[in-house]
């Protein structure tokens, strides 16, 4: 093997190893920040003559594919699907289209979940921990295609035409043979 080839191979390997950094998971949540709801702006109107609109709070969870997929799990587990289905809507409005009644910014969705909205949306303040609300908010945005593809989770199993293996009904158990007497 020529020296150039060896060097090229080494460079490839090194760059491969260096680029292999795994996305870190946030397992221990930082303590909840001060009440962020007061900084979330719902309408474009501002009080006062020269008031400066507060910038919408960013959502660090929407940069982590793990957090967004956690949001997807929670969306199912906390029964958001009960009203919004898997984004298609039903009792509640659909979440996968481009119409937003109360805003599409992360802070708007956070406020919607925390405070509730008229005509049906309950408040989940104290019920769902704040970091999980942010994760759900990130997932809701991903349904409308507002997150990069890299972090957006796949469609949930429930939306497949054929049920996934884990949601097929249990079969009749097999594998039991023999009678008690032979083991006494």
């Amino acid at each position, binding site marked *: 093997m020529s020296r150039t080839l060896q060097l090229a191979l080494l460079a490839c390997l090194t760059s491969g190893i260096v680029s292999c950094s795994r996305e870190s998971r946030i397992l221990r949540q930082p303590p909840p920040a001060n009440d962020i709801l007061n900084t979330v702006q719902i309408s474009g109107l501002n009080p006062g003559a020269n008031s400066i609109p507060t910038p919408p709070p960013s959502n660090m969870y929407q940069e982590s594919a793990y957090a967004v997929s956690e949001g997807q799990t929670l969306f199912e587990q906390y029964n958001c699907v009960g009203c919004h289905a898997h984004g298609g809507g039903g009792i509640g409005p659909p979440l996968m289209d481009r119409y937003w009644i109360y805003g599409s910014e992360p802070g708007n969705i956070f406020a919607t979940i925390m405070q509730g909205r008229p005509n049906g949306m309950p408040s989940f303040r104290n019920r769902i921990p704040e970091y999980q609300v942010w994760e759900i908010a990130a997932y809701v945005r991903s349904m409308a295609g507002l997150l990069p593809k890299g972090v957006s989770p796949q469609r949930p199993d429930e939306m497949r035409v054929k049920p996934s293996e*884990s949601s097929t009904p249990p079969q009749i158990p097999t594998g*039991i043979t023999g009678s008690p007497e032979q083991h006494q």
Partner: protein
Amino acid sequence: MIASFIGVALALIQAKSLDPGGHNMLQPAAPQASQIEWLYWTVFWILLVVYVLMIGAFTKTAVVNRSGATGPLPIMTDEKGDRRAKWAVGTATGITVITLFVILVMSIVTGKKAAGLTSKNPVTVQVTGHQWWWEVTYPNSQADQTVTTANEIHVPIHTPIVLLTNSSDVIHSFWPPNITGKRDLIPGYSSAAWFQIDKPGIYRGQCAEFCGLQHAHMGFSIIAQSVEEFQSWEQQQLKPANEPGTPEATRGRAVFLTHSCLMCHTIRGTDAGSRLGPDLTHVASRNMIAAETLPLTAGALAGWIVDPQRIKPGVKMSPNPLAPDDLQAVVAYLQSLQ
């Protein structure tokens, strides 16, 4: 090498004299585990004999054929010696094949015996694996007669127990070494096994299939008790949760029902009815919490509620930064749920 082997053998023999319930396949408390133990020791002694013979043969060769020559010896051909070597190798190969075959047959027979079911009025237990705890239900045709608990499996002694298994997320494996062999819990596939315990006691078990971050702390215990004790336990479990008896517990229930607890846990008799986490209706009747990780004490409960991620990083329960008096009230309420 010999020393290490003796060390392992001594450790095994000592393991026989450890805590009887403590996760030890060499202290069987059930017919299946006895079968497995018998197979274990039989194979152990066969292999010990093989080992001694092998080491003996190597030592003999090394000692007898020792020569003082420094350079390589010329290859000597000896027709009689060659024939003898052929016989020796042939015989050794034959013995090896027969020994391995005998072990194979014993293994199959043991497996068959362990899988057979006793069917005289068995008690059925449904175990569902979750990341990272065990949901235990005692199915009954009447829904209000179905007992649901978590991590601690009460069974009557001298009674066949039919174990139905399933998993809600990933593959887990149910392994109580003192009782029986492993049984994989596969999502979407219900399987059945049986066991029977003859000695009352508490036997620890463990998930034996890597299932994620807290796999190592996914323990359970099987509590074998007399039929009468089991039935009274079952009757107690069927009741809805105790009404709180003290003002603090009453407040604890209110805290439980207005915070994130009720998003995941069930307490029958209250509004909390979610099935994501363990059923807490009779949580104070258990010995341990957090899948047999912590003893059920006020301190452990409080620490677990406030920051489970410190105790078991990655666990599905979220931290609950409750105010101190709210926390104490919740702990008092949970401890009243006998």
